[in-house]
């Protein structure tokens, strides 16, 4: 399926329609504005708990899902709102989940950290660093064994690359040649600890060689680069050639969570990355290649703003779960 990047045509233009690319931009806006809306609701005390925002990482989320079908699956992380939107979730049900409502994707039981949309193949965000990695390998085992042709994209952060589960899972995916693509969103800090201080290799993609799989590091804020690298890995997986590791170098503009006091990075560093806004970059790219003009961008942004406003209204108006249902769905049938 992949058109090689010859004739100097950027990969995404060679492989995706204009409508698909506009939809990709719309999703990036939707992620950004969803998270800004969520942050606003949070600071006003409308959402409890905490949340981990991926503002600044939108190209990684959307680009990594470009080659996936609705049947393909992903596992996500605690910084997973972007993955959820990229895989096709609706903002309204996501907001409903954040507000703890029965209409939310997890019926108010999961919240930000466990957001999932199983129908669209999102097997769920995970509150445990690296928790989703072996699960992705298990899903890939199912795909292979049941011959469904599905590919699994396993998102994880740089922090997860030092968890045992990461190493165990990559090893098994490799020895069993499973259709899984490991996508590391390297945003440089595991909470406050930089990769330089935590990780023995220069690039997390270097870990791939230890498990005999291809590993590539790309600019995670470059939609074209991310899409190209992950699509190649997805093709390889779908062809039965086994797993790959793609490392998207990116940056979260916000703190680790809402409790972050930002003591470990400078304002200058943050400003540098804000200047490399993936949405601005992709917008410029699309304008440059005449996929859409500023009016088109404005229209997308306006429609996303409206979608977010409607989604928040839907969430606010949705019913709360019944307290008497607190133990529902612990088991599949009635048990206790």
């Amino acid at each position, binding site marked *: 399926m992949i058109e090689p990047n010859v004739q100097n045509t950027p990969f995404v233009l060679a492989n995706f329609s204009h409508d698909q690319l506009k939809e990709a931009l719309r999703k990036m806006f939707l992620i950004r504005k969803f998270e800004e809306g969520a942050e606003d609701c*949070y*600071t*006003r*005390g409308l959402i409890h708990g905490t949340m981990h925002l991926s503002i600044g990482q939108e190209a990684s989320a959307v680009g990594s899902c470009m080659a996936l079908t609705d049947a393909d699956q992903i596992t996500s992380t605690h910084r997973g709102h972007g993955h959820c939107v990229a895989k096709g979730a609706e903002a309204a049900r996501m907001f409903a989940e954040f507000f703890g409502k029965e209409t939310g994707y997890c019926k108010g039981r999961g919240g930000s950290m466990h957001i999932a949309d199983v129908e669209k193949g999102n097997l769920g965000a995970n509150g445990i660093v690296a928790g989703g990695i072996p699960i992705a390998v298990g899903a890939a085992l199912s795909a292979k064994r049941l011959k469904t042709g599905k590919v699994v994209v396993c998102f994880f952060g740089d922090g997860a690359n030092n968890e045992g589960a990461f190493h165990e899972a990559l090893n098994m995916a490799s020895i069993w040649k499973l259709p899984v693509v490991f996508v590391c969103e390297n945003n440089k800090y595991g909470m406050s600890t930089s990769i330089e201080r935590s990780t023995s290799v220069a690039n997390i993609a270097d870990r791939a060689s230890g498990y005999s799989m291809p590993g590539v590091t790309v600019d995670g804020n470059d939609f074209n680069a991310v899409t190209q690298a992950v699509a190649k890995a997805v093709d390889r997986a779908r062809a039965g050639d086994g797993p790959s590791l793609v490392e998207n170098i990116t940056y979260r503009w916000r703190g680790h969570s*809402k*409790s972050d*006091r930002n003591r470990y990075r400078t304002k200058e560093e943050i400003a540098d990355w804000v200047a490399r806004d993936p949405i601005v970059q992709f917008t410029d790219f699309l304008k440059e290649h005449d996929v859409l003009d500023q009016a088109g961008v404005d229209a997308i942004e306006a429609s996303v703003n409206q979608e977010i406003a409607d989604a928040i209204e839907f969430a606010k108006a949705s019913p709360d779960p019944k307290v008497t249902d607190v133990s529902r769905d612990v088991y599949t049938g009635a048990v206790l």
Partner: protein
Amino acid sequence: MPVEVILPKVDMDMATGTIAEWHKAEGDLVALGEPLFDIETDKSTMEVESPGAGTLQFVAAKVGDEVPIGQTIAWLFAEGEAVEAPGNTVVEITQPEPKPNIEVPSHSPAESRDGEGLRATPLARRVAKERAVPLSDVSGTGPRGRITRADVDAHKPMSSATQHRKADTPEPNTVAAPVYVQTDLKIDALLSLQTQINAAEIASGRAEIRLTDLLIKACARALTALPRVNAIWDGARVRECDGVNVSLLVPWADENAIAVVADAHIKGLRKVSTEVANPTQPEKTDAPALPDPTDRSLMIWDLSAFEAKTINAAITPPHSMALAFGQAQPQFLPDEAGQPKLATILTVTLSCDPRVVDAALGAQWLQKVKSMVENPFEILVT
């Protein structure tokens, strides 16, 4: 449109925040993302960046104010924007909530008395309740006196040999105003007998016989000797008791309790003593058919644990008499030669229900008791 500056939630479990510092003053020009103010939370101070660009206006929270999250605390006006007070600028400053005044309920005396000292299994409690048997009437045979179901089964209400019953306070003597008869008992002979008996008892590893046990025997014998006294008022008339059953207010129990020694006139001293001290049930097999223990005429009040010579005891139904004594006193009495001789005197007071036992009859019976006490070998002859 001006940009609202709110007190943001910056932590889990945060309901309010205190303004620690304003980095900008009213009228200052502020850039997007510039530090605007600091919030003090439980954990530490958190810097809040400006949510927009413009001139800071209508600052409504000052340093030290505790503000609920989500409250508007200022506005930012863009260049050229008319500076007009937007709506909602009134800040509710939260008052620290007074700590809830939690009252610790004090235990009522009844509750604590109920729980005290009585051990019973849940099953024993339930069965006793079903049968309306007061657990305090049941003797526990388990470890530390625990009452089990078997103990409740063994308990035959109204027919046990010895009953311990809570005697919180004697019920008001509704019978009639009592008449009192008092006398001194010279108990040296009784004490001497007690010493002899106990020398043998201790040698054979048995428990000592108490003075009270001897007095119970003496009274029982006296009741046998004068059956008219061994009677009660049944509500309408005088009725002679079936058997000689003597109640004793047990002063050495944890709480006032009444032991009933049924057929005390025919029981040996050891048996009387054991029943008073150790109110266990007799083996079912040798439990004789006993008279109704409500059928008892005399209650002995043993107050020797206290420094009282004697008291005028109340009469509690069903009894018609109460015999009270305190501590014995050494006293010089003239001997046959008229010389002072040290004697041990126990002063006793008999309270009589005059409908059953009038003063003369009471005195007559007391004389019999005195005779038994001062010639104690009569006690043993049964």
